[in-house]
C-alpha cells in the first residue's frame, strides 16, 4: 500500500524518485536479505554545485536564506567576578578583586583586571589586561596581549603570552609570562578547582605563584619566587550566577621581595579570613 503511494508521489513530484521495484519475497534460507546485506564499495558521486530550490523560488531570496543558515555561530559575552572580597587579618584589613569580561566564542577578546589593597593605604596593586584568546584544543586556549599596571608605582606596561584552560582532574589553570617596558621578565601560575560538596555548597582550593627573573627594587619586588598564595574558599551558590563565600588565605613573599617588605615594616606573611562574592552576568 505504502509502496503504491510512493509511486503516486513520484509521478507527481519527480519521476526520478521511483524506487527499485524489488518485490519482497521469501528468500533462500542462507542468503542475507534487505538490511542484512553488506554494503558495496561504490564511489560517491561528485558534489553538485546547483541549488534545486532555485527552480521554484527566487534565487536571490534562496541565497540570502542559505547565507543565514550557514552563518557562523554568534558571539557570546560574559562578565565575571571570580573574587571580590574583604580580607580580615591582624593589623590592616584588606580587599581584593579578580575578574574578566570576554566576548567571542572560540576566539575571544578578554579584558581582565585584578588587584588588592589595604583599607588604610588604599591600592597596593592593580592591573588591567587586554587579551586575545584562541582555542587550541578542546580544553586549552593560547592567549596574548598587553598588561598595564596602575600599582605598584612606577607603573609598568607589559606584553604577555600564556595558556589558559582545563587541566586533567578539572583544574582551571592559567600560566602566563610577562615582559615589561623595562625588559623585566615575570611569570604567573594560577590554578583552582571546584569541589562540589552539595548541589549548592562548593569548596574551591586555589593557588597562585608569581616569579621574576630580575630584581625591581623601585617597585619593591625581588627575583625568584616573589609571592606564593594558597587559599580555600567555601561558597554557597544561591544561584549558579551568584555565590557569597567565606575562606582562608595564606600568602608568603620570599627572597628579596620579603626583604623589601620587612624594610618597609611589613610582614612577608599574611594570613587572612576572606569574605566575598563570586558572580557573573
Amino acid at each position, binding site marked *: 500500500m505504502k509502496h503504491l*503511494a510512493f509511486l503516486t508521489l513520484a509521478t507527481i513530484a519527480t519521476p*526520478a524518485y521511483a524506487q527499485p521495484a524489488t518485490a519482497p519475497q521469501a528468500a533462500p534460507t542462507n542468503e542475507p536479505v534487505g*538490511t542484512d546485506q553488506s554494503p558495496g564499495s561504490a564511489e560517491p558521486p561528485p558534489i*553538485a554545485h546547483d541549488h534545486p530550490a532555485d527552480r521554484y*523560488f527566487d534565487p536571490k531570496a534562496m541565497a540570502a536564506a542559505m547565507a543565514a543558515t550557514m552563518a557562523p555561530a554568534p558571539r557570546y559575552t560574559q562578565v565575571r567576578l571570580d573574587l571580590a572580597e574583604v580580607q580580615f587579618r591582624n593589623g590592616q584589613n584588606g580587599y581584593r578583586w579578580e575578574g574578566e569580561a570576554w566576548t567571542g566564542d572560540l576566539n575571544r577578546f578578554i579584558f581582565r583586571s585584578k588587584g588588592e589593597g589595604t583599607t588604610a593605604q588604599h591600592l597596593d596593586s592593580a592591573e588591567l589586561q587586554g587579551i586575545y584568546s584562541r582555542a587550541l*584544543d578542546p580544553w586549552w586556549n593560547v592567549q596574548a596581549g598587553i598588561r598595564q599596571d596602575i600599582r605598584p608605582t612606577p607603573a609598568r606596561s607589559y606584553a604577555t603570552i600564556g595558556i589558559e584552560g582545563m587541566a586533567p582532574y578539572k583544574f582551571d589553570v592559567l600560566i602566563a609570562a610577562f615582559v615589561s617596558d623595562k625588559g623585566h621578565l615575570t611569570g604567573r601560575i594560577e590554578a583552582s578547582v571546584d569541589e562540589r560538596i552539595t548541589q549548592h555548597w562548593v569548596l574551591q582550593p586555589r593557588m597562585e605563584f608569581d616569579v621574576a627573573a630580575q630584581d625591581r627594587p623601585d617597585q619593591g619586588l625581588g627575583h625568584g619566587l616573589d609571592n606564593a598564595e594558597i587559599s580555600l574558599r567555601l561558597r554557597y551558590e544561591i544561584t549558579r550566577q551568584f555565590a557569597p563565600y567565606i575562606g582562608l588565605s595564606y600568602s608568603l613573599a620570599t627572597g628579596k621581595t620579603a626583604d623589601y617588605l620587612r624594610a618597609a615594616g611589613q610582614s612577608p606573611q599574611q594570613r587572612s579570613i576572606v569574605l566575598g562574592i563570586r558572580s557573573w552576568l
Partner: protein
Amino acid sequence: MKLAPFDRRTLLRAGGLAAGASATGWAMPGWAHRLAQGQPAPETLSGESITLRIGKGSLLIDGKAAKAVTINGTVPGPLLRLKQGQNLKLTVINDLDEETSLHWHGLLVPFQMDGVPGISFPGIPPHTSFTYEFPVTQSGTYWYHSHSGLQELLGQYAPIIIDPAGPDINAAPRDHVVMLSDHSFIHPAKILRNLKVDPGHYNHQQQTLGGLLAGKDQPLGQRLAWAKMRMDPTDMADVTGAVLSYLINGHGPADNWTGLFTPGERVRLRFINAAAMTLFNIRIPGLTLSVVAADGQDVQSVAVDEFQIAPGETYDVIITPTQDRAYTIAAETMDRSGMARATLAPRAGMIASVPALRERPLLTMRDMGMDMGGMSMKGMKMRDGTLAPQVKLGPGVEMINPMPIDRTGEPGLGLANVGHKVLTYRDLVALAPNPDTSAPAREIEVHLTGNMDRYMWSMDGKTMSEAHAPLPMRSGERVRITLINDTMMAHPIHLHGHIVELVTGHGDHAPRKHTVNVLPGGKVSFDMTAIPGDWPFHCHLFLHMAMGMMRIVQVRPA
C-alpha cells in the same frame, strides 16, 4: 478567526468541565477534549485546504503564563487530521515580526515543500504567507514544527494524523494524541547563552563530596579516573528540569491533561516527542504497552512496560485498560530531573498516583565506547584521530569513540536495570516487507562530535557552516549510513524527506524510521534510498542543531 480560541477559553471557564464531557466522539483523538483547566483547546483541521497562522502568544503552564509562538493561537497548534491519498494545500500566514517556517516531520513531500529556510525554500518573511502543496502519500502519526530560529522551543509544533486509505489495522475506539514537549519561562536564546558561558549550568544533579561520603554514585577511584579525563558521568542532558517544564498536549503536570476511556476498550495512544532537548521514559503503571508503530510506520506488535522516546520520534501504542480506575501516563526525563504527567481515566476529574522520579543514572565507560568486558583499557586513547580520519580534530571534538558499540539491543540510557521490559530498537520489526530490499551500494560513516565544555556540536568535527559541503548521493541510490557517537550524549538524528530502514538484523523487515537515536558510545546503521532534492540531516536536539550538528544530504539524478 483569531478570537476563536479566546472564545473557547471563556466558554470553558464558564462551563467548567462540560466542554470535555460532551466531546467523546468515536475515534476522535483526545485532542479537542479539554478536561484540564488552562489555555484554549487546539483545533483539529481536516480537508484539502488548510490555513495556519503563526503568531506570538502565551501558554499557561500549571497556571503560570510563559511566552510562546503559537499556531492558530494555541500550543501545540492544530492537529492536522488527513487522509492518505488526499492532496493538501496549506497556507501559512506569518504574523510574527521575524521569519518563520513549518516543516512536516516524517512526511515524504517534494523537497521544495519540506519547509527548511535556505535549503528547501526561502522561509516565510514577516507578515507574509506561503502556500505549501503536496500529496499526502503516507499514513500514520507524524508532526510539524518550525525550522526557523528557536521557534520550535517556544511552542511552534503540532501533531499530524494520517488515516490510511484502506482499513486501519490499528484502529481503536479510543484514539488519543500524547504530544510531549519541554517549555521554559526564560527565552531559549538565553538558555543557549548560559550553556555557552557555563556548560554545566542546568545540571543540578552532579556528583558531590556529600554523596561520596554517603556512599552514593561513583566510588572515589572512579571519580578520580573520570575527573582525570575531564568527563562528568552526570552530564547526560544539557537542559534539564532546572529550567524546563515538561508538557503533555501543552499541559503541565499539575494541569494534568486527561484522556478518557471506557474500561475494556482498546485505546490507541499516539506518542510524539516534540521536546526540543528532552528524551523521555514513558510508563503507564498498571498497563502493558503494545507498540504497533514507530515514526508512523507499522511494526509487529511488541509488548513492553516502558519505552524511551527521543525528540522527533513517534510511537503508536495500544493499551487495554480493563479496570474502572485512572492511570497515570508518566513521562520521566532521561536524566530524572523532571516529569511530564497526564491521566487516562473513565471519567473526568479522576487521578491515579504519580510514580516518584527514579534515581538519576550515571554514564559509564560503555557510554564512552570503552566497555572492554574486563579487558585492560591501557593504551586506549580517548581522542585517537587515526580511528576517524575524516574527523577534524579541533577544539570541538572532545573524544573519538575508541570502540563504537552497536547498542540497538539496549533500552536507552538509564533503563538497563529497571526491573521490567523496556523497548529496544531491535524489538522493532516492520509489519510489511520493506519497499526497497536491495543491498546498499556503499556505506557512509558520519561521526557525531562535540565538546560539552565549550558547548560545541558538529558532525565529523565540523559544524554545517564550517563543512559547507553536503553528503552527495545519486537519485535512487541505496546507501548505508553509519552514525558513530563520539560524545557522551544521546543524539536523535533526523533525515528529512526519507523513511529509512534500521540495520538491526531484521533483513527485509527492518523497522522504518525518520529519526534515529544514537546512544553515547554507540553506533547505528540505516539503509536509505535517496530521493532527489536537498535534505537536512541533523540532530533533533534543537540546540545541537543550532550549534551546527547538521548536514545537507544532496541527491541528484544519477
